[in-house]
């Protein structure tokens, strides 16, 4: 029962266990809010990470992409209401708001990060910050 001797260490372990249980396998405890909208696919290209999400019918003006250190937040909303005075036969397209934060396993180069919304797909290129890259040190 050594774990309770140090309450802070115990808390930290508990926090880690909770985070691990909620995390996905792929990025190894690095994405938060799994299951939230929008679903994302994560790719690697060289040292960069590419986040891809399907966001059809979303106005670029209402799409909010924020990057802070190693967190990416994607928020926005869309409305799919039919014009008034029409009879609705089928309604499958969702409307509403979304707000999702993802964590990548490195610090992002904020100046080099790019977001493109094309044909209803959001492509987020997240290069690793130069300061965060491993450096080889010459051995004398």
């Amino acid at each position, binding site marked *: 029962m050594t774990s309770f001797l140090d309450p802070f260490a115990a808390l930290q372990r508990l926090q880690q266990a909770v985070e691990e249980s909620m995390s996905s396998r792929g990025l190894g405890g690095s994405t938060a809010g799994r*299951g939230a909208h929008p679903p*994302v*696919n994560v790719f690697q290209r060289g040292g960069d990470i590419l986040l891809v999400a399907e966001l059809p019918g*979303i106005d670029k003006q209402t799409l909010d992409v924020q990057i802070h250190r190693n967190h990416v937040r994607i928020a926005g909303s869309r409305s799919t209401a039919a014009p008034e005075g029409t009879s609705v036969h089928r309604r499958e397209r*969702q409307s509403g708001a979304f707000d999702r934060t993802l964590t990548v396993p490195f610090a992002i180069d904020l100046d080099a990060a790019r977001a493109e919304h094309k044909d209803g797909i959001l492509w987020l290129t997240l290069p690793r910050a130069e300061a965060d890259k491993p450096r080889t040190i010459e051995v004398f």
Partner: protein
Amino acid sequence: MTDEPMKVHEKRESSPGREQTTPGKTYSPDTDIYETEEALVVVMDLPGVDRGRLSVSLERDQLRVEGGIDFSAYEGLSPVYTEYNVGHFSRTFALSSKIDRDGITARIAGGVLTLTLPKSPEQQPRRIRVT
């Protein structure tokens, strides 16, 4: 404007009315259909489909929409973590009202297709003046 949180729902695979000859999965796009006095309007989510890869056909009251994805955008990328599948889209609808084929308009923007299918004049409701 609603601010209900959007939920994630799994993409449904489409049930093709014919055998597939292209590899890969095909998904059924989420669709809204509403009717005005003059036309039937079909709105479809087709993320990743541009004008060049879209085909809309109307044959014997069967409306078929096919949207292709450009997989070349994914070349050279190694997947790290995936939450949704990527594939072409296709869906067929049986239309109940007669459509004026020449008046059909299709517009795709931002991954959303809007199809306006004007009803043929004899199908439109007529107002009868009561004397």
